């Protein structure tokens, strides 16, 4: 029987997970996991390098992440 406290903690954890996913803060963790699983030999970029890479991709094709009126 989960107590009220543990339920609140679960809810807060879910909110944190949702916000991280929605803002793509989790992009680096996801990419690292992806590399480890699919290309175990590949060098893993640091977070700083990875975020630069992502900004560079957005600059090259601004249609990525475009928003509507």
């Amino acid at each position, binding site marked *: 029987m989960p107590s009220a406290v543990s339920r609140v903690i679960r809810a807060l954890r879910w909110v944190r997970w*949702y916000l991280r*996913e*929605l803002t793509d*803060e989790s992009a680096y963790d996801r*990419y690292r996991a*992806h590399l480890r699983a699919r290309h175990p030999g590949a060098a893993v970029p640091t977070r700083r390098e990875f975020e630069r890479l992502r900004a560079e991709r957005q*600059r090259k094709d601004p249609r990525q992440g475009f*928003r509507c009126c």
Partner: protein
Amino acid sequence: MRTANVRTIVVWTLVALVGAAGWSVLALSRGEDVSAAWTVAAALGSYAIAYRFYSRFVANRVLRVDGTRATPAERLDNGIDFHPTDRRVLLGHHFAAIAGAGPLVGPVLAAQMGYLPGTLWIVAGVIFAGAVQDMVVLFFSTRRDGRSLGQMAREEIGPFGGAAALLAAFVIMIVLLGVLALVVVNALAESPWGTFSLAMTVPIALFMGFWLRVLRPGRVVEVSLIGMALLLLALVAGRRVAESSWADAFTLAPSTLVIWLVAYGFVASVLPVWMLLAPRDYLSTFLKIGTIALLALGVVVTLPTLRMPAVTDFATRGDGPVFAGSLFPFVFITIACGALSGFHALISSGTTPKMIQKETQVRMIGYGSMLMESSVAVMALIAASVIDPGLYFAMNAPAGVIGDTVQNASQVVGGWGYTITPEQLAAAARGVEEASLLSRTGGAPTLAVGVSEIFSQVTGDGLRAFWYHFAIMFEALFILTALDAGTRVGRFMLQDMLGNAYRPFKDVSWRPGLVLTSALVTGLWGYFLWVGVHEPLGGINQLFPVFGISNQLLAAVALTVCTTLLVKSGRLKWAWVTGVPLLWDVTVTLTASWQKVFSTDPRVGFFEQRRVYRAAIEEGRVLPPAKSMADMHTVVTNSTVDGVLSAVLALLVVVVVLDAARVCVRHVRRPALSTLSEAPYTESRLVAPAGLVATREEREAERRARDAVGSVPRD
């Protein structure tokens, strides 16, 4: 086949009754006060039924979504732009991408014809046209590795139709940016509080960009929270600034704001993405979702009374001050976003199909988020209808019509049958701490007054001015983001087009090309903005119909691509699902274009307007609302540009539709000649629920899949 159980039948009968009760009250009450509760009931009841029954039919019978087929996100997973994303996250993503200023502006302007025509179109339009378009485009793009609408048009219709579609998209982007910028100018002109708080968003975004680039890369949530706090601080400080000696520095005339905005648009679009665009996008997304949630809560908690009549005389007479023309076709182009928006096809065929886990989720993501946007439009319409109709017309009529004193405005608005005293007009402006609310056209200030009216019922009158400026900043912030992002997308299209003539343009990093194309795009929308601000007949009045027509023409392109694909993929029997909305959209839009080009009413037809003003110039007369000969010449130039633009856009779309019809007929006659560029079937190994709430079987399947892999459940 599953048979419905008693509980399901009872629940859905009740939902139907709630919706029907709402519509009955809206339809039957005339001249008496109607609570917004009925609008909410009618809309939500209809959405629920449409989602449960119609979207299910379209997904299962028409599209035949296949849960066993792997999506691009699964097949092409690269951990960056292609990756299977949790459906609830993707719903948020997709909704944040499609909902912007559009659903907030159009319904406010359409309120001049009363709340009923707008509500009917928003709800019926989204159910049968808008949400269907979004879902079908998303489905077909998912089957094509996330191809864009332009690429699909080229591949499935042909190079000619494809090129016309691409050119139409570019022109539409320019008009859109010009009109959105005009909304910002009208909201911020002569308003030091609003201008200061919006100006502060630039240093805040720069700070956030620095944080994310240098201090703590990728920590988006924390920096967004800091940014939001700073934003609220800027908003509170704005009041102080407006009362201080700095006020003059931030009290800007419309022409000055135009120069600032154009300069801003250019600089922002050539700066690196991380500096301004990305951080401000986080800010505006948070603010957008937060404010929409607050507004929904406010409407449901206060359930305000609608003071606007159900249908006004302007609906039939067609001489409304906000925009000219009668109910058909102009309500249907004024309200684009929220009912049917062509722009959504660009999102549904861009980022989202690369992230969707399962084909079965297109119903929830495509249809579901469009229903959510539609409810935003309904709330905007409610907000515009709860304020005094006299104030509404005084705020939305061009200055040339109502003059610039409260006495004059009160008299003119009284002549239309809406009484409001000069004192009441002055008090309304004082209430939100603005110098004047007269001719604050563009929808944003009206919405802000409506929002402040609703929120101050909860928080008390003391915060009314705060809520007004909060709403203004909220709209201006994401319009500014749209200017930056839209300029980049327009530039990208232009670089691609120019690249065919001179190769280096194709390289998006080539500095001279980048600067030149940026300047061209900003110059183009800047031109429309400048024209809109100096238009004697009222910029919104003249330009908003062109914007509405272009948005609906883009929808026609999207629906044409959908219908062609339905026919070519062996779903001819179901082609009406997008074919009928297409027919409606084309009828409405081409009628509107026709009237804008050929109408003999100078208020509606651009060329008639041009003829009348030219004739007057030759006789040396000045026609009101023009005040000088220079004004007269401005009117002639603008109506020529607007008229030619309306005609060109309509022609482009006719070309696309005819070319698509040719392809469809050929396919029906000789199917062997058609090619269908669908990605081949690959079996999916992912397990994920289709709807927002997982069913018991889906949860069971997810658990089994996790156990099979042996991974640890998330929590």
